[in-house]
């Protein structure tokens, strides 16, 4: 039986990927960011999963305005890193556990989560940056050390799915994974955030107190936290801070009681507060 042994929350700031791709990670600006992931990379080496279930959002890259699925599950054999306007990131192609992805799709739909199935999809920084921060630099002709099942969540056009819906989807994903009949170690990621606003006159908003409270409650009060209305994210964490609903999917897939093994918070990376947390999920 497949099992979820850990959940990871992680910002996916595009500039972090750019810094790695250009070899700028030792610059004073970037040093504290990558220092915060040193322990994560050690932990990742010791606990490398077979499969990563990656909850992320597309930033108007694979999806244009013509079709906006709320939840889209990647069922293709592989996913090419997309050109987001500056050329594709020089990172390896992302390979799926295609059979498991199809199983999860079927299980979720029968569990009344009517997801969209993607048999062709490119992936943007939302997916590749978390892989990069956890695994370090991997050459384009190399391989990611785990297979990746992407779940794409709409957080661009209001409204994103509610935190409650995301949390319950996490529970359904867990049921789907645990009913897959192969002995696999699975990690689940919730990505995006933390506080940031990229647009208009309030751009640059950062709210460390709110972010840290979010991390505390994610650990100790996940159900209560999942009830937060959208307007609070928009107001307190910035218009793009609403990405954090995706962290509830990850948390919902874990036990109520988990072990927090690492946490890191830093301002800024470009326009954004970087937040990161690792939970171990015991059987």
């Amino acid at each position, binding site marked *: 039986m497949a099992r979820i042994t850990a959940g990871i929350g992680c910002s996916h700031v595009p500039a972090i990927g750019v810094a790695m791709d250009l070899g700028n990670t030792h610059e004073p600006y970037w040093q504290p960011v990558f220092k915060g992931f040193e322990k994560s990379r050690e932990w990742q080496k010791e606990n490398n999963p077979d499969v990563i279930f990656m909850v992320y959002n597309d930033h108007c890259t694979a999806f244009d305005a013509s079709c906006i699925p709320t939840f889209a599950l990647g069922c293709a054999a592989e996913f090419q890193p997309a050109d987001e306007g500056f*050329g594709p990131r020089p990172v390896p192609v992302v390979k799926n556990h295609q059979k498991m992805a199809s199983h999860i799709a079927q299980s979720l739909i029968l569990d009344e989560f009517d997801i969209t199935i993607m048999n062709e999809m490119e992936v943007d920084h939302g997916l590749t940056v978390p892989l990069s921060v956890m695994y370090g630099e991997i050459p384009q002709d190399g391989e990611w050390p785990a297979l990746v099942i992407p779940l794409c969540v709409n957080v661009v056009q209001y409204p994103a799915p509610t935190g409650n819906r995301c949390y319950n989807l996490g529970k359904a994903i867990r049921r789907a994974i645990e009913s897959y009949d192969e002995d696999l170690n699975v990690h689940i990621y919730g990505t995006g955030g933390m506080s940031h606003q990229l647009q208009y006159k309030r751009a640059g908003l950062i709210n460390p107190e709110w972010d840290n409270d979010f991390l505390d409650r994610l650990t100790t009060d996940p159900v209560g936290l999942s009830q937060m209305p959208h307007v609070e994210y928009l107001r307190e964490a910035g218009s793009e801070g609403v990405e954090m609903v995706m962290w509830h999917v990850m948390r919902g897939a874990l036990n109520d009681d988990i072990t927090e093994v690492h946490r890191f918070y830093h301002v800024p990376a470009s326009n954004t507060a970087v937040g990161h947390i690792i939970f171990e999920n015991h059987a």
Partner: protein
Amino acid sequence: MEKDYEDIPGTFVFDADRSREGYHLNQFCISLRLQANRDRFQADEKTYLDAYPMTSDQRDAVLNRDWNRLLELGGNIYYTSKLAANDGINFQNLAGLMTGMGVEEYRKMMVEGGRPIEGNRYKSEWGEE
């Protein structure tokens, strides 16, 4: 539908109304994701734009690179950032332009911890209604 987010200052929430208004503008922007399209756009911006039935205000805002106007007319930042990328402008420098602070001053604000939440929650705090 009630919009409980309309009292947030300096912010456009990209909801269904804005999405409807900005559809062709945003579809134009995302087309620049591909190098072949960026090449065609750079060769002749006006002809390229003819393929997208946007309003003349939207078209002018594109040609003038009026980044805030693009948002006011239904553009979304993840789309307009593709036009910025075409011009070699990344997210942080684009924010520097949209806030009117300029690239250097904006970058300095971010390094010093970003724009604080105090005084930036409600339009009333900005002297707006």
